[in-house]
């Protein structure tokens, strides 16, 4: 009876009046939530630029790189390697002075060639600035950390000829670096030449395909692997560390596991047999002792 009256009161004119403020409040809340959600989504389409907290005077990074140079490629067959590196030599206000180096060497230590240039990067915008003050455009030596899937970031050039990349993998992937496997996010410009991985915690470039003419190194086309840095990249990505170790050691670990398993099974079987024999022996001895009684 009570339930019926309450139900009736909800649909009656007096009930409507009573719930009107509640409904209005709920409506406003829903609208506000929708606005906030869409607003946040619109803001998050492009990840906001964050100056790298780890960048200090003396910070450096070095990469194994690929050169589009036939002569060097011939030398590579004889054991030559190439490295690209940058080092922060000055950091004043928001402009970092970087010393870029590209060099080739033989594994015995002989230098084949070495090139150096100085560049200025606005840490707030990642814009590369020439010594005469002209803005060359964005660089992708580092990007904001923790990019989410679908977020966009400008990786080269300046407006209106900017290269926009989109994050297509965020976490769950990793790259081999000088500090072990590090979790990363992957970006691509969708056929415009730049694809690569960046460290999740710091945003430092791990590997990147692109052109580096704006840094003064036309021949360089790819950063293969981060070989040296004093930036703390954070904890190792254990999933890859463990699985890579297991996969690499499969020829050794699998036979060992099989042999130990067989050994354990055989040992258990023998123990069971021994136990059974002992039990039988006990039973027979007990029977023998009980018979004369």
């Amino acid at each position, binding site marked *: 009876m009570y339930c019926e009256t309450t139900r009736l009161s909800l649909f009656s004119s007096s009930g409507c009046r009573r719930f009107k403020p509640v409904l209005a409040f709920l409506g406003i809340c829903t609208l506000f939530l929708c606005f906030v959600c869409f607003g946040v989504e619109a803001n998050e389409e492009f990840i906001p630029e964050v100056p790298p907290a780890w960048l200090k005077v003396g910070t450096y990074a070095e990469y194994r790189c*690929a050169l*589009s*140079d*036939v002569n060097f*490629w*011939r030398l*590579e*067959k004889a054991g030559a390697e190439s490295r690209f590196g940058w080092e922060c030599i000055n950091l004043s206000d928001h402009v970092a002075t970087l010393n870029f180096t590209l060099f080739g060497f033989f594994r015995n230590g002989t230098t084949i060639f070495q090139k150096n240039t100085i560049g200025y990067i606005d840490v707030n915008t990642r814009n590369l600035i020439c010594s005469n003050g002209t803005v060359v455009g964005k660089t992708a030596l580092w990007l904001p950390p923790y990019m989410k899937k679908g977020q966009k970031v400008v990786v080269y050039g300046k407006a209106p000829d900017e290269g926009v990349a989109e994050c297509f*993998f965020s976490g*769950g*992937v*990793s*790259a*081999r670096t000088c500090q072990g*496997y590090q979790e*990363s996010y*992957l970006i*691509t410009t969708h056929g415009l*030449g730049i*694809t690569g*991985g960046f460290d999740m915690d710091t945003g430092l470039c791990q*590997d990147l*395909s692109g052109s580096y003419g704006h840094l003064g190194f036309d021949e360089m*086309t*790819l950063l*293969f*692997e981060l070989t040296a840095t004093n930036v703390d990249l954070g904890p190792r*990505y254990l*999933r*890859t560390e463990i*699985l*890579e170790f297991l*996969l690499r050691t499969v020829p050794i670990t699998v036979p060992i596991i099989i042999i130990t398993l067989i050994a354990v099974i055989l040992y258990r079987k023998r123990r069971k047999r021994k136990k059974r024999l002992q039990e039988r022996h006990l039973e027979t001895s007990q029977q023998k002792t009980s018979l004369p009684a």
Partner: protein
Amino acid sequence: MGVDCIGKVCEVVLVVCVAFAVVSMLGVQVVLCSDFDYDCDQKLDPWATWGNMAEIYGYYSTNPLKYGSEDHIAQAWTHWPMVVLEGKVYFNGTYGQEYSVYIEIDGLSYYESEHYTYYTGTVSTESRAYFYNSITGSHFWNNCFAHVTAGAEP
């Protein structure tokens, strides 16, 4: 009169024949010995295999420069758990009238073919694929570097 006429006609025919022979000798396509080599950095990637082949035609025209055309194919095959995420081609050299490149990625393989004509001297092509191991989660680039030299002087 008749003999003179025949003689003149013969002279003209001879000149035309000689001219034709000279032009055809200069312009005819001659497949020359060409140099093709490639190297793929497979040390990083025990899962993927690269295939690479090229057909090179070197020939001469009236221009003293060396010219040639090349059809070049590079392919990277993988198998599970490796996935091809991206592929790129870098052409390094001078090509003239025509250059076309075709890339196809279907997850487990990367296929790239190039055709270019009238290149001079040497050209090099970098073909690379971006791999991802779906078990371990690691990603890396792998390179295949092809180097082609135009036909040698006859």
